[in-house]
């Protein structure tokens, strides 16, 4: 599993040249120019939190990774080449969609409680929910009238 973020990668490399070489000769660090797809997503807010629903039909739960690095949320496919899995006996005579590698990043709001982030995968949709931190929730105070 590749857990190294591009930021780490830049920090670790001693020079630009080094970075360039590692991108070229090391399989671990795929260049940022890899043709990765951004899946369709719905982003919304409720009174108590935030939600990101990402459309990922055809994927299994085990093929998706959800990582938080600071306030950065990264959702990506684990298998870069998913083409192999989709090939069955026979041949496609019409093909409108295929499973391809994807990666999507979000910067989460400060008032989100990242400790309580939850991800659920249901019928081809990844549902990420992040509650708002308690201090960010609207407070109701009843004032007694004397």
């Amino acid at each position, binding site marked *: 599993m590749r857990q190294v973020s591009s930021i780490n990668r830049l920090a670790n490399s001693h020079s630009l040249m080094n970075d360039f070489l590692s991108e070229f000769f090391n399989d671990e660090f795929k260049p940022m120019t890899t043709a990765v797809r951004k899946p*369709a*997503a*719905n*982003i*919304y*807010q*409720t*009174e*108590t939190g935030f*939600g990101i629903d990402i*459309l*990922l*039909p*055809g*994927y*299994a739960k085990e093929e998706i990774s959800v990582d938080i690095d600071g306030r950065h949320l990264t959702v990506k496919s684990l298998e870069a080449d998913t083409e192999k899995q989709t090939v*069955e*006996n*026979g*041949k*496609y*005579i*019409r*093909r*409108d*969609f*295929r499973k391809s590698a994807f990666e999507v990043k979000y910067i989460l709001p400060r008032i989100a409680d990242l400790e309580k982030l939850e991800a659920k995968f*249901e*019928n*081809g*949709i990844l549902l990420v929910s992040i509650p708002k931190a308690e201090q960010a929730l609207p407070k109701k105070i009843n004032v007694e009238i004397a």
Partner: protein
Amino acid sequence: MRYSNSLLDLNRSYQNMPLNVLKNEKGYVFEFIVPGFKQEELNVMVEDRNLILKAERANEEKGTKQKYSQRSFGFGNLTKKLRLPEHVDVDGLSAKLAHGILKVELPFDSKKHIVRTISIN
């Protein structure tokens, strides 16, 4: 509306829902994208040599009020109609739902699906 008379019809204005069609030794496999739908919300049937897929959501409300800041897909109902060729066995139809993709398998009718190799003299 133009009529599609083949599985290979690529008229996108009619076929606006993405579809994969796979052909193997046994028959055809159709792959429909139906994310968010549960098995009981999907209905596959054959009517007059048309394959019809209906996806209807049981409850469209998601409870709490949501304020969208980005909306790239909806949760509407779907209907898809495909004209089937003569050489398939509609009684052998089977469907399977996995991770938001519905796979419909339709075997060839062995009586009508004739594969011949013609020798060249």
